[in-house]
């Protein structure tokens, strides 16, 4: 019993160390700039203010930037939901020539680091005139190998008999896919949607390379650039960090089941 209590104490101490920086950051974003530099610091703001967020609206055009992040994320999620489940279906339930070779490509793409292909990708996007466009930011992320893997794994568990019965009834593959397979995939699609939303929302490198004018910046890009030349305006930067982090934290708290399922189904198998 005593051991149990010491475990709880250690776990709680760990939790404080993990969560405190978040709490501190959120609280700081509501302090006026002068109070942020106050010594000794006050945990709760002595004077609650939205001044930092007003500044963010004025200087970083945060409304537009937030919307850009959202547009990119929604497009990427939509693409992945459709394409990854199509590809996953083919791998799980259809037979075709070069199947194993194509599947090997999925695994290859999983291991290629973004930084390695970044420059040639950029040259390509520049050649086809997509630099500084939403399409340029979105296009390479429309089918992610992790998503293909996840959907293949899930669709493999759907009983073959369901699909065979439909084939015997004369249904075409596309019809089977859209009316039988996709509706059964709802839990996997929820997980996939969340994972790709998260990936897109937090993605920095590629949007930073493609978006070259302020009206296309996504949140991480705008924040990184801002911290580069407004390095000491902490109120502004901290508020920006909260705007990047908070939507994801909220999603996670309510939908954590799907996040954890995602890891379990891709990581363990």
């Amino acid at each position, binding site marked *: 019993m005593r051991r149990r209590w010491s475990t709880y104490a250690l776990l709680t101490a760990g939790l404080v160390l993990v969560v405190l920086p978040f709490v501190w950051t959120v609280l700081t974003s509501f302090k006026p700039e002068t109070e942020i530099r106050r010594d000794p610091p006050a945990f709760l703001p002595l004077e609650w203010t939205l001044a930092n967020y007003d500044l963010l609206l004025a200087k970083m055009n945060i409304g537009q930037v937030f919307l850009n992040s959202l547009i990119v994320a929604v497009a990427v999620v939509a693409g992945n939901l459709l394409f990854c489940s199509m590809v996953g279906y083919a791998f799980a339930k259809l037979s075709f020539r070069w199947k194993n070779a194509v599947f090997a490509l999925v695994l290859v793409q999983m291991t290629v*680091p973004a930084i390695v292909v970044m420059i040639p990708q950029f040259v*390509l996007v520049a050649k086809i005139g997509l630099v500084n466009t939403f399409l340029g930011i979105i296009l390479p992320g429309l089918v992610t190998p992790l998503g293909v893997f996840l959907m293949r794994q899930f669709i493999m568990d759907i009983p073959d008999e369901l699909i065979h019965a439909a084939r015997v009834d004369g249904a075409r593959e596309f019809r089977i896919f859209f009316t039988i397979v996709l509706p059964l995939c709802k839990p996997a699609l929820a997980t996939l949607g969340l994972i790709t939303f998260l990936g897109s929302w937090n993605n920095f*490198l590629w949007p930073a390379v493609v978006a070259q004018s302020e009206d296309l910046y996504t949140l991480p890009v705008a924040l990184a650039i801002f911290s580069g030349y407004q390095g000491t305006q902490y109120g502004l930067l901290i508020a920006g960090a909260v705007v990047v982090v908070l939507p*994801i934290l909220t999603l996670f708290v309510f939908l*954590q089941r799907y996040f*954890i399922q995602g890891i379990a189904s891709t*990581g363990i198998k």
Partner: protein
Amino acid sequence: MTVRERTPLLRGPRGTLRRTGVAWIFVTPFVVMFAVFWAGPLLAGLGMSFTDMRSTDVRDPLGVNLVGVENYLRLFDDELMRQAALNTLVFVVTALPLTLALGLAAALALNSGIARLPAAFFRLGYYLPHITSIIGIAVAWRFLLEPDAGPVNQVLGAVGIDGPSWLADESLALPVIIVMTAWRSFGFDMVVFLAALQGIPRELYEAAEVDGAGRWDRFRSVTLPMLRPVLLFCTVYSSIGFTQFLEEPLVMTRGGPAGATTSASLAIYNEFGSGNYGYAGAAATVLFTVIVALAVLQFRVGRSR
């Protein structure tokens, strides 16, 4: 990993042909994207690394000059590149065990008979940093560690310790980023370990107990061997990710002070920013080779034991 084939209904030349055609329509989106955005660029990057291509050559990428292995030779003479390689190595070999150990410790603690509800609560909290934007985290930590106004030094000051300028100190900046990375990443390993721990059959522990094994013996002879596959997975996964670290130094230190936190990826990113595409391509090729070699090596070692 092999693709399972179940094709009882698809026998016969006509059937197979028809299915083949339809299946290809399903995989075409992936194949086209792979060819255009990965296979092509991977080869182009390799080719680029043997040329003197610069950002001004984008209009006419084929009009560049071949320079052979000159970029690669320059790479090994470049003081900053050598330091970036060393920093990356130090980062990976310290952050990796730290993250794994923290993840394992948290998973073991959560699996040691803690009630369900608090366990879920702790798991939620520990996993939080992993899913949040690195850029956002880096901005927040830069503030927390700010020498005068940052709460870390203010708290240290309150107990009479004069806190250092964490990120401006050549010997402290990289360790700080390492600790922050472990802080951010261990929750992922924890979730993976926890799932694996819960899959270990109880009988194994009972049998070990009957044989008179103590707590440490049971950990060493039951838990660790059963965790080997996920340990290997987390090691490979994290080292691939850690080898590419970039955003943390970019936001927190811009690779400084005096290059002390410049990572291989950040150096490549900066060369790209300066327009040296050929040179950056050579560095990227070396990085990719190292990452692939590392993964293969880890699989060899992890499987053979």
